[in-house]
Protein backbone atom coordinates (compact mmCIF):
# COMPACT_ATOMS: atom_id res chain seq x y z
CA UNK A 1 0.00 0.00 0.00
CA UNK A 2 1.26 3.52 -0.54
CA UNK A 3 1.97 6.13 2.09
CA UNK A 4 -1.48 7.69 2.03
CA UNK A 5 -3.28 4.38 2.45
CA UNK A 6 -0.95 3.48 5.30
CA UNK A 7 -1.70 6.80 6.95
CA UNK A 8 -5.44 6.31 6.70
CA UNK A 9 -5.13 2.78 8.05
CA UNK A 10 -3.04 4.02 10.98
CA UNK A 11 -5.53 6.74 11.89
CA UNK A 12 -8.40 4.27 11.63
CA UNK A 13 -6.54 1.84 13.89
CA UNK A 14 -5.89 4.52 16.51
CA UNK A 15 -9.52 5.63 16.44
CA UNK A 16 -10.68 2.05 16.87
CA UNK A 17 -8.24 1.55 19.73
CA UNK A 18 -9.57 4.60 21.55
CA UNK A 19 -13.21 3.86 20.80
CA UNK A 20 -13.17 0.21 21.86
CA UNK A 21 -13.16 0.68 25.65
CA UNK A 22 -15.85 3.34 25.36
CA UNK A 23 -18.07 1.09 23.27
CA UNK A 24 -17.35 -1.90 25.50
CA UNK A 25 -18.18 -0.07 28.71
CA UNK A 26 -21.28 1.50 27.27
CA UNK A 27 -22.49 -1.84 25.96
CA UNK A 28 -21.77 -3.51 29.26
CA UNK A 29 -23.82 -0.97 31.13
CA UNK A 30 -26.57 -0.87 28.55
CA UNK A 31 -26.09 1.83 25.95
CA UNK A 32 -27.68 5.11 27.06
CA UNK A 33 -28.95 3.54 30.26
CA UNK A 34 -27.52 5.07 33.44
CA UNK A 35 -26.37 2.43 35.92
CA UNK A 36 -28.14 2.70 39.28
CA UNK A 37 -26.30 4.67 41.94
CA UNK A 38 -24.94 2.39 44.62
CA UNK A 39 -27.14 1.96 47.68
CA UNK A 40 -25.05 1.96 50.77
CA UNK A 41 -25.92 0.43 54.11
CA UNK A 42 -24.28 2.89 56.43
CA UNK A 43 -22.17 1.38 59.19
CA UNK A 44 -23.36 1.62 62.79
CA UNK A 45 -21.25 2.38 65.79
CA UNK A 46 -18.76 5.10 66.68
CA UNK A 47 -21.67 7.52 67.27
CA UNK A 48 -22.18 7.80 63.53
CA UNK A 49 -18.98 9.72 62.89
CA UNK A 50 -15.92 8.56 60.95
CA UNK A 51 -12.43 9.89 61.68
CA UNK A 52 -13.02 12.70 59.16
CA UNK A 53 -16.16 14.29 57.66
CA UNK A 54 -18.07 12.27 55.08
CA UNK A 55 -17.28 14.41 52.05
CA UNK A 56 -13.58 14.33 52.83
CA UNK A 57 -13.64 10.58 53.40
CA UNK A 58 -15.54 9.90 50.21
CA UNK A 59 -12.94 11.79 48.16
CA UNK A 60 -9.78 11.04 50.07
CA UNK A 61 -10.04 7.84 52.06
CA UNK A 62 -7.58 6.09 49.78
CA UNK A 63 -4.98 8.85 50.17
CA UNK A 64 -5.53 8.85 53.91
CA UNK A 65 -5.05 5.12 54.09
CA UNK A 66 -1.84 5.21 52.05
CA UNK A 67 -0.26 8.04 54.02
CA UNK A 68 -1.31 6.62 57.35
CA UNK A 69 0.01 3.26 56.21
CA UNK A 70 3.43 4.66 55.45
CA UNK A 71 3.56 6.54 58.72
CA UNK A 72 2.53 3.49 60.72
CA UNK A 73 4.48 0.79 58.89
CA UNK A 74 7.61 2.71 57.98
CA UNK A 75 7.56 5.51 60.52
CA UNK A 76 6.61 3.26 63.38
CA UNK A 77 4.05 5.77 64.62
CA UNK A 78 1.11 4.20 66.42
CA UNK A 79 -1.63 6.47 64.98
CA UNK A 80 -4.61 4.61 66.47
CA UNK A 81 -7.02 7.09 64.84
CA UNK A 82 -5.98 6.12 61.31
CA UNK A 83 -4.86 2.50 61.76
CA UNK A 84 -6.62 0.18 59.32
CA UNK A 85 -7.60 -2.22 62.09
CA UNK A 86 -9.47 0.64 63.76
CA UNK A 87 -11.67 1.18 60.71
CA UNK A 88 -13.06 -2.31 61.26
CA UNK A 89 -14.81 -1.28 64.46
CA UNK A 90 -17.54 0.37 62.38
CA UNK A 91 -16.86 -0.70 58.81
CA UNK A 92 -17.49 -4.39 59.22
CA UNK A 93 -19.79 -5.24 56.33
CA UNK A 94 -17.73 -4.92 53.20
CA UNK A 95 -20.32 -6.28 50.77
CA UNK A 96 -22.96 -3.75 51.85
CA UNK A 97 -20.77 -0.67 51.99
CA UNK A 98 -17.27 -0.67 50.55
CA UNK A 99 -17.86 -3.04 47.64
CA UNK A 100 -20.91 -1.16 46.38
CA UNK A 101 -19.11 2.05 45.49
CA UNK A 102 -16.00 0.18 44.41
CA UNK A 103 -17.85 -1.94 41.87
CA UNK A 104 -19.82 1.11 40.65
CA UNK A 105 -16.55 2.94 40.05
CA UNK A 106 -14.88 -0.18 38.70
CA UNK A 107 -11.95 -0.20 41.11
CA UNK A 108 -10.53 -3.23 42.87
CA UNK A 109 -8.30 -2.21 45.76
CA UNK A 110 -5.67 -4.87 46.34
CA UNK A 111 -5.76 -4.19 50.09
CA UNK A 112 -8.39 -6.85 50.61
CA UNK A 113 -6.09 -9.56 49.23
CA UNK A 114 -4.38 -9.49 52.60
CA UNK A 115 -6.28 -7.26 55.00
CA UNK A 116 -9.41 -8.79 56.39
CA UNK A 117 -12.56 -6.70 56.26
CA UNK A 118 -15.66 -8.77 56.97
Amino acid at each position, binding site marked *: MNGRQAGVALVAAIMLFVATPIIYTAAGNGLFRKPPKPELVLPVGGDGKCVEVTDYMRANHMKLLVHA*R*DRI*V*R*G*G*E*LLPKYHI*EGCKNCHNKRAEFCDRCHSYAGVKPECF*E*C*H*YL*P
Partner: protein
Amino acid sequence: MTDMDRRGFVKAGLAVLAGSALGPGVTLFQAFAEDGRESSKTRWGMVIDTNKCSEKCTECVSACRTENNVPLFGEPKYDGHWIRKAAVTPDVEGAKSMSLPLLCNHCEHPPCQHVCPTAATFTRHDGIVMIDKHRCIGCRYCMIACPYKARTFVFKSTEEWPNKDVPKRSKGVVEKCHFCAHRLDKGQIPACVEACTKSGDGAMIFGNLKDPQSDISKYIRENAPRGLREDFGLKPKVLYKGV
Protein backbone atom coordinates in the same frame (compact mmCIF):
# COMPACT_ATOMS: atom_id res chain seq x y z
CA MET B 1 7.93 16.20 7.46
CA THR B 2 10.92 18.29 6.54
CA ASP B 3 14.27 17.53 8.03
CA MET B 4 13.94 20.45 10.42
CA ASP B 5 10.65 19.15 11.84
CA ARG B 6 12.02 15.65 12.33
CA ARG B 7 15.11 16.94 14.04
CA GLY B 8 13.08 19.25 16.24
CA PHE B 9 10.77 16.43 17.19
CA VAL B 10 13.62 14.12 18.06
CA LYS B 11 15.34 16.83 20.09
CA ALA B 12 12.14 17.50 21.99
CA GLY B 13 11.68 13.81 22.59
CA LEU B 14 15.20 13.44 23.92
CA ALA B 15 14.69 16.43 26.19
CA VAL B 16 11.57 14.81 27.61
CA LEU B 17 13.43 11.55 28.16
CA ALA B 18 16.32 13.28 29.87
CA GLY B 19 13.90 15.23 32.02
CA SER B 20 12.07 12.10 33.06
CA ALA B 21 15.37 10.57 34.11
CA LEU B 22 15.59 13.35 36.67
CA GLY B 23 12.50 12.02 38.40
CA PRO B 24 14.28 9.20 40.21
CA GLY B 25 17.09 11.55 41.11
CA VAL B 26 14.76 14.01 42.80
CA THR B 27 13.02 11.32 44.80
CA LEU B 28 16.44 9.98 45.77
CA PHE B 29 16.60 12.68 48.39
CA GLN B 30 13.25 11.56 49.70
CA ALA B 31 14.52 8.01 50.02
CA PHE B 32 17.24 9.12 52.38
CA ALA B 33 14.92 11.19 54.49
CA GLU B 34 11.99 8.98 55.14
CA ASP B 35 13.04 5.86 56.97
CA GLY B 36 11.37 5.99 60.33
CA ARG B 37 12.09 8.01 63.39
CA GLU B 38 15.34 7.68 65.23
CA SER B 39 14.53 6.27 68.62
CA SER B 40 17.32 5.70 71.02
CA LYS B 41 15.19 4.34 73.83
CA THR B 42 14.24 0.92 72.53
CA ARG B 43 16.17 -1.82 70.82
CA TRP B 44 14.38 -5.15 70.88
CA GLY B 45 16.46 -8.28 71.29
CA MET B 46 16.04 -11.93 72.10
CA VAL B 47 18.13 -14.52 73.91
CA ILE B 48 17.67 -18.25 73.44
CA ASP B 49 19.00 -20.64 76.03
CA THR B 50 19.73 -23.79 74.05
CA ASN B 51 20.25 -25.80 77.21
CA LYS B 52 16.57 -25.41 78.00
CA CYS B 53 15.23 -25.81 74.48
CA SER B 54 14.13 -29.40 73.86
CA GLU B 55 13.98 -31.17 70.55
CA LYS B 56 10.36 -32.29 70.74
CA CYS B 57 8.95 -28.87 71.56
CA THR B 58 7.72 -26.70 68.66
CA GLU B 59 5.52 -24.28 70.59
CA CYS B 60 7.24 -21.22 69.13
CA VAL B 61 6.73 -22.44 65.56
CA SER B 62 3.02 -23.22 66.00
CA ALA B 63 2.36 -19.99 67.84
CA CYS B 64 3.99 -17.96 65.08
CA ARG B 65 2.04 -19.74 62.37
CA THR B 66 -1.26 -19.11 64.07
CA GLU B 67 -0.51 -15.54 65.07
CA ASN B 68 0.83 -14.42 61.70
CA ASN B 69 -1.01 -16.65 59.20
CA VAL B 70 2.29 -18.13 58.01
CA PRO B 71 1.38 -20.54 55.24
CA LEU B 72 1.92 -24.28 55.32
CA PHE B 73 1.21 -25.75 51.92
CA GLY B 74 2.32 -29.23 52.81
CA GLU B 75 5.09 -28.84 50.25
CA PRO B 76 8.47 -28.29 51.90
CA LYS B 77 9.64 -26.26 48.92
CA TYR B 78 7.03 -23.57 49.41
CA ASP B 79 6.21 -23.63 53.12
CA GLY B 80 6.81 -20.34 54.83
CA HIS B 81 9.16 -20.34 57.79
CA TRP B 82 9.28 -17.28 59.98
CA ILE B 83 10.75 -19.33 62.81
CA ARG B 84 11.94 -22.91 62.55
CA LYS B 85 13.46 -25.48 64.86
CA ALA B 86 16.87 -26.88 64.03
CA ALA B 87 18.96 -29.66 65.53
CA VAL B 88 22.64 -28.75 65.59
CA THR B 89 25.34 -31.32 66.27
CA PRO B 90 29.06 -30.56 66.54
CA ASP B 91 31.14 -32.66 64.18
CA VAL B 92 32.77 -34.64 66.95
CA GLU B 93 32.42 -38.28 67.99
CA GLY B 94 29.51 -38.83 70.35
CA ALA B 95 28.50 -35.19 70.50
CA LYS B 96 25.01 -34.36 71.70
CA SER B 97 22.72 -32.43 69.40
CA MET B 98 21.32 -29.10 70.52
CA SER B 99 17.86 -27.96 69.63
CA LEU B 100 17.20 -24.31 68.93
CA PRO B 101 14.89 -22.06 66.96
CA LEU B 102 16.19 -20.08 63.99
CA LEU B 103 14.55 -16.84 63.02
CA CYS B 104 15.36 -13.43 61.64
CA ASN B 105 18.16 -11.98 63.72
CA HIS B 106 17.17 -8.34 63.16
CA CYS B 107 20.77 -7.44 62.51
CA GLU B 108 22.05 -3.96 63.13
CA HIS B 109 23.71 -4.05 59.70
CA PRO B 110 21.17 -6.13 57.79
CA PRO B 111 22.42 -7.30 54.38
CA CYS B 112 18.81 -7.79 53.33
CA GLN B 113 18.19 -4.08 53.80
CA HIS B 114 21.34 -3.18 51.90
CA VAL B 115 20.27 -5.07 48.80
CA CYS B 116 16.55 -4.30 48.66
CA PRO B 117 15.98 -2.27 45.46
CA THR B 118 12.89 -0.48 46.74
CA ALA B 119 13.92 -0.06 50.38
CA ALA B 120 10.92 -2.25 51.23
CA THR B 121 13.12 -3.82 53.89
CA PHE B 122 14.00 -1.20 56.43
CA THR B 123 14.88 -0.88 60.10
CA ARG B 124 12.19 0.58 62.31
CA HIS B 125 12.98 3.06 65.02
CA ASP B 126 13.07 0.29 67.60
CA GLY B 127 15.54 -1.87 65.71
CA ILE B 128 13.09 -4.29 64.12
CA VAL B 129 13.97 -5.08 60.51
CA MET B 130 10.60 -4.89 58.77
CA ILE B 131 9.39 -5.66 55.28
CA ASP B 132 6.92 -3.13 53.87
CA LYS B 133 4.86 -5.59 51.86
CA HIS B 134 3.15 -2.77 50.03
CA ARG B 135 6.47 -1.88 48.48
CA CYS B 136 8.08 -5.26 47.98
CA ILE B 137 8.34 -6.17 44.30
CA GLY B 138 9.22 -9.78 44.97
CA CYS B 139 12.69 -9.72 43.41
CA ARG B 140 14.07 -12.11 46.09
CA TYR B 141 17.51 -10.49 46.24
CA CYS B 142 17.15 -10.28 50.03
CA MET B 143 16.71 -14.05 50.21
CA ILE B 144 20.05 -14.50 48.49
CA ALA B 145 21.70 -11.97 50.78
CA CYS B 146 20.50 -13.27 54.17
CA PRO B 147 23.12 -15.50 55.79
CA TYR B 148 20.53 -17.11 58.06
CA LYS B 149 17.99 -18.05 55.41
CA ALA B 150 15.44 -16.19 57.49
CA ARG B 151 13.26 -15.08 54.59
CA THR B 152 10.72 -16.93 52.55
CA PHE B 153 8.86 -16.03 49.40
CA VAL B 154 5.11 -16.45 49.04
CA PHE B 155 4.91 -18.82 46.10
CA LYS B 156 1.17 -19.08 45.91
CA SER B 157 -1.79 -17.47 47.52
CA THR B 158 -3.56 -19.20 50.34
CA GLU B 159 -7.14 -18.90 51.53
CA GLU B 160 -6.40 -19.92 55.11
CA TRP B 161 -6.80 -17.07 57.54
CA PRO B 162 -6.53 -18.31 61.12
CA ASN B 163 -5.93 -14.88 62.63
CA LYS B 164 -8.19 -12.29 61.02
CA ASP B 165 -6.68 -9.46 63.03
CA VAL B 166 -3.50 -9.55 61.00
CA PRO B 167 -3.03 -9.60 57.24
CA LYS B 168 -2.80 -12.88 55.43
CA ARG B 169 -0.07 -13.73 52.99
CA SER B 170 0.07 -11.90 49.70
CA LYS B 171 1.41 -13.83 46.76
CA GLY B 172 4.60 -12.56 45.23
CA VAL B 173 6.31 -10.82 48.14
CA VAL B 174 9.00 -11.89 50.59
CA GLU B 175 8.28 -12.13 54.29
CA LYS B 176 9.91 -12.93 57.58
CA CYS B 177 9.67 -12.55 61.33
CA HIS B 178 9.09 -8.99 62.52
CA PHE B 179 9.20 -9.70 66.26
CA CYS B 180 5.37 -9.47 66.19
CA ALA B 181 5.61 -5.70 65.86
CA HIS B 182 1.83 -5.43 65.99
CA ARG B 183 1.85 -7.07 69.41
CA LEU B 184 4.79 -4.99 70.62
CA ASP B 185 2.91 -1.84 69.66
CA LYS B 186 0.09 -2.98 71.96
CA GLY B 187 2.47 -3.70 74.80
CA GLN B 188 2.53 -7.48 74.38
CA ILE B 189 5.48 -9.78 73.67
CA PRO B 190 6.02 -11.79 70.48
CA ALA B 191 3.82 -14.87 70.10
CA CYS B 192 6.75 -17.30 70.06
CA VAL B 193 8.17 -15.97 73.33
CA GLU B 194 4.78 -16.07 74.98
CA ALA B 195 4.20 -19.65 73.86
CA CYS B 196 7.67 -20.74 74.93
CA THR B 197 7.21 -19.22 78.37
CA LYS B 198 3.66 -20.48 78.92
CA SER B 199 3.66 -23.93 77.35
CA GLY B 200 7.20 -24.54 76.12
CA ASP B 201 10.57 -24.86 77.77
CA GLY B 202 10.97 -21.25 78.81
CA ALA B 203 14.08 -20.96 76.67
CA MET B 204 13.34 -17.55 75.17
CA ILE B 205 13.91 -14.19 76.79
CA PHE B 206 12.77 -11.03 75.03
CA GLY B 207 13.21 -7.42 75.92
CA ASN B 208 14.72 -4.01 75.42
CA LEU B 209 18.48 -4.24 74.97
CA LYS B 210 18.88 -0.54 75.68
CA ASP B 211 17.29 -0.79 79.10
CA PRO B 212 20.03 -1.85 81.50
CA GLN B 213 17.46 -3.03 84.04
CA SER B 214 15.49 -5.32 81.69
CA ASP B 215 15.63 -9.08 82.14
CA ILE B 216 17.41 -9.55 78.88
CA SER B 217 20.13 -7.03 79.63
CA LYS B 218 20.77 -8.68 82.98
CA TYR B 219 20.92 -12.10 81.38
CA ILE B 220 23.37 -10.91 78.76
CA ARG B 221 25.63 -9.39 81.39
CA GLU B 222 25.66 -12.63 83.37
CA ASN B 223 25.78 -15.20 80.60
CA ALA B 224 27.43 -13.61 77.55
CA PRO B 225 25.31 -15.30 74.85
CA ARG B 226 26.66 -15.10 71.30
CA GLY B 227 25.09 -14.26 67.98
CA LEU B 228 25.30 -16.55 64.95
CA ARG B 229 28.08 -15.88 62.45
CA GLU B 230 29.32 -12.90 64.41
CA ASP B 231 32.29 -12.90 62.06
CA PHE B 232 30.07 -11.35 59.40
CA GLY B 233 29.88 -8.19 61.47
CA LEU B 234 26.10 -7.89 61.12
CA LYS B 235 25.54 -7.45 64.88
CA PRO B 236 22.50 -9.74 65.21
CA LYS B 237 19.99 -9.04 67.96
CA VAL B 238 19.09 -12.69 68.56
CA LEU B 239 21.70 -14.24 70.82
CA TYR B 240 22.20 -17.87 71.73
CA LYS B 241 23.53 -19.35 74.92
CA GLY B 242 25.21 -22.69 74.72
CA VAL B 243 26.15 -22.84 71.05
